[in-house]
């Protein structure tokens, strides 16, 4: 177990190191000069020099890199000149919005995929299975921003069932006191039912647009694995004990078919947490995605570098968590210490 952990840790550090190095180099070889962008086209050479010193990009590259990593570890993530504040504070004020949206989208995608895959494969239900196959094929080919706009046109403009692209709450509604930053949780904590239902209403369309592709992917994967497992010989043995179809399906087929879905879910969650850029734009969602896009365009080194490093840490963390869950679900992946021949 210890050696396994050590291996994992080394792998995680290597991943993070690689990601940081690539982002560091890419930003610096991209054409364009952030200093010019900040100081303006008419600034004097002296002023440019001042900005350079301020940003720390007058220093030799290895020193810059060391400061970047050292700063990240100690919590000094640099200064964002586009947002006009320390990167950490800028992120902190926006990360909750992104996280809430991503989690909501993930829960929808995961739950829907689980239920539909189970129903589609349960005694080969042709109707549900046909539906699942069509919708998942459709889902895999759907661009998120396009779906976002279609959903807005149908459910906001035409039917007026859900609020439009107006952020996380109606403009007239007072946000509940900030505890976790997740509006649904905070409004519940404050007992503010109006804010809670509004937060949910605002979440549904962006979460659907964001979660549809992951849903399509997960449902396909899980369906295929469920079908494969339901043909395994041990399923006949379970059935020969008198266990019913549904209990066999959920207690024996599903746990055995679940591992690939678990792995994919981890990556999807990480992707949702970092990749909701366009959907955030469409729904005017005050999250990290929009900030990052702007920062890339303006070569705001500090923001982009921190974001990529944060993403890498997140991916590594999620995949580590998934590996731990593997052990819980599949005893064969646990360390063979308990093996007694």
């Amino acid at each position, binding site marked *: 177990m210890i050696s396994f952990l050590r291996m994992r840790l080394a792998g995680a550090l290597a991943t993070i190191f690689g990601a940081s190095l690539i982002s560091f180099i890419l930003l610096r070889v991209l054409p364009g000069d952030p200093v010019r962008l900040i100081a303006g086209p008419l600034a004097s050479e002296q002023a440019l020099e001042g900005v350079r010193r301020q940003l720390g990009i007058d220093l030799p590259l290895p020193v810059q890199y060391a400061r970047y990593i050292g700063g990240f570890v100690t919590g000094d993530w640099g200064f964002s000149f586009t947002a006009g504040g320390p990167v950490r504070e800028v992120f902190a004020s926006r990360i909750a919005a992104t996280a809430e949206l991503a989690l909501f989208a993930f829960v929808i995608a995961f739950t829907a995929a689980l239920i539909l895959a189970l129903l589609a494969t349960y*005694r*080969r239900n042709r109707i549900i299975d046909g539906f699942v196959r069509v919708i998942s094929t459709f889902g895999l080919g759907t661009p998120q921003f396009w779906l976002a706009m279609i959903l807005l046109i149908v459910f906001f403009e035409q039917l007026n069932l859900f609020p439009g692209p107006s952020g996380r709450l109606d403009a007239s509604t007072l946000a509940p006191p900030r505890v976790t930053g997740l509006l649904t949780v905070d409004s519940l904590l404050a007992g503010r039912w109006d804010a809670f239902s509004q937060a949910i209403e605002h979440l549904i369309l962006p979460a659907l647009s964001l979660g549809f592709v992951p849903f399509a992917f997960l449902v396909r994967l899980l369906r295929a694995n469920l079908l494969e497992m339901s*043909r*395994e*010989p*041990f399923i*006949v*043995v*379970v*059935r*020969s*004990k*008198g*266990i*019913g179809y549904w209990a066999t399906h959920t*207690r*024996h087929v599903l*746990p*055995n078919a679940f591992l690939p879905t678990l792995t994919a879910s981890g990556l999807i969650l990480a992707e949702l947490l970092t990749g909701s850029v366009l959907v955030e734009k469409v729904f005017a969602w005050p999250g990290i995605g929009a900030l990052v896009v702007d920062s890339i365009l303006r070569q705001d080194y500090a923001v982009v570098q921190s974001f990529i490093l944060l993403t890498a840490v997140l991916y590594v963390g999620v995949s580590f968590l998934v590996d731990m869950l593997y052990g819980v*679900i*599949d*005893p*064969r992946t646990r360390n063979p210490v*308990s*093996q*007694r*021949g």
Partner: protein
Amino acid sequence: MRAVRGVSFEVRRGEKVGIVGESGSGKSALALSILRLIAPPGEVVGGQVWLNDRDLMRLREREMAHVRGSEIALIFQDPMTALDPVMTIGAQIVESIRKHRPDVSRKEARDRAIELLRDVEVPLAERRIDDYPHQLSGGMRQRVVIAIALANDPPLLIADEPTTALDVTTQAQVLDVLERAVEERGAAVILITHNLGIVADFCDSVKVMYAGRLVEQATPTDLFRSPIHPYSEALLRSIPDPARLEQGPLPTIPGAPPSLANLPAGCAFEPRCPLGRGVAICKNTAPPVIPIGQGVAECHFAEERWADNETMRKEAAADDRS
């Protein structure tokens, strides 16, 4: 295509019936049909399975589920794939117990599972019960499979090639375990196998299956001494026997079983039969079921062969007496 056709036999309380035949003869399909566990798109298109006074084919699925595991249990052929890999063996035994007796507490069911594991001679049962299948050897896994089948003391066990996947020493041990457990409980057994040696040791009666039909039914003694159906005879001759080594290589049955999708009009064995190949009646007419001695055979030559063997049987019986 039909894997099992017109098969009819009965098993009495406590009787041990062997069903033998080569691969693809329909043995496993028969076992799964009795339990109504043929996987779709396969299905049982007709027939009856009477358990005491109920026709299992006409039960509702819910009633059938109650029969499985508590009145008829299955011992599956390959222990390597017969157990759920992500569940402890204890949980798999307990699941069967509690399915049929929901009033039994978890603790009691667990104690009973340990007892069952002891019955099938799993050493250190109280520790092994929390193991996962991958932590056990093939022989141990097959004992667990047997323990699961015995969990509710079913009056009928269907053992589908219970020892085929095991090495010879383990085979003997597992068979011993099975035999003792069955004897203690007075359960009837349908033993499906291609191994005639096991049948001779274990069974009270033998059915020989070919191309989805029972071509001969007899006591093991009769079958071994004087097989009536040419297929039975050929099967017997292809058992490896050290005493016959000098007589050259092991005889095999030429050809392969017929495609079940395209059965001949006459006897299904005719194209491979040393006796009937090319004979008009064998080629064109399906043989009737002919009662012979204590059994039956489906062969046009059955009576002839039975008469031919009469003297041989008498001599053998005389040997037995002396």
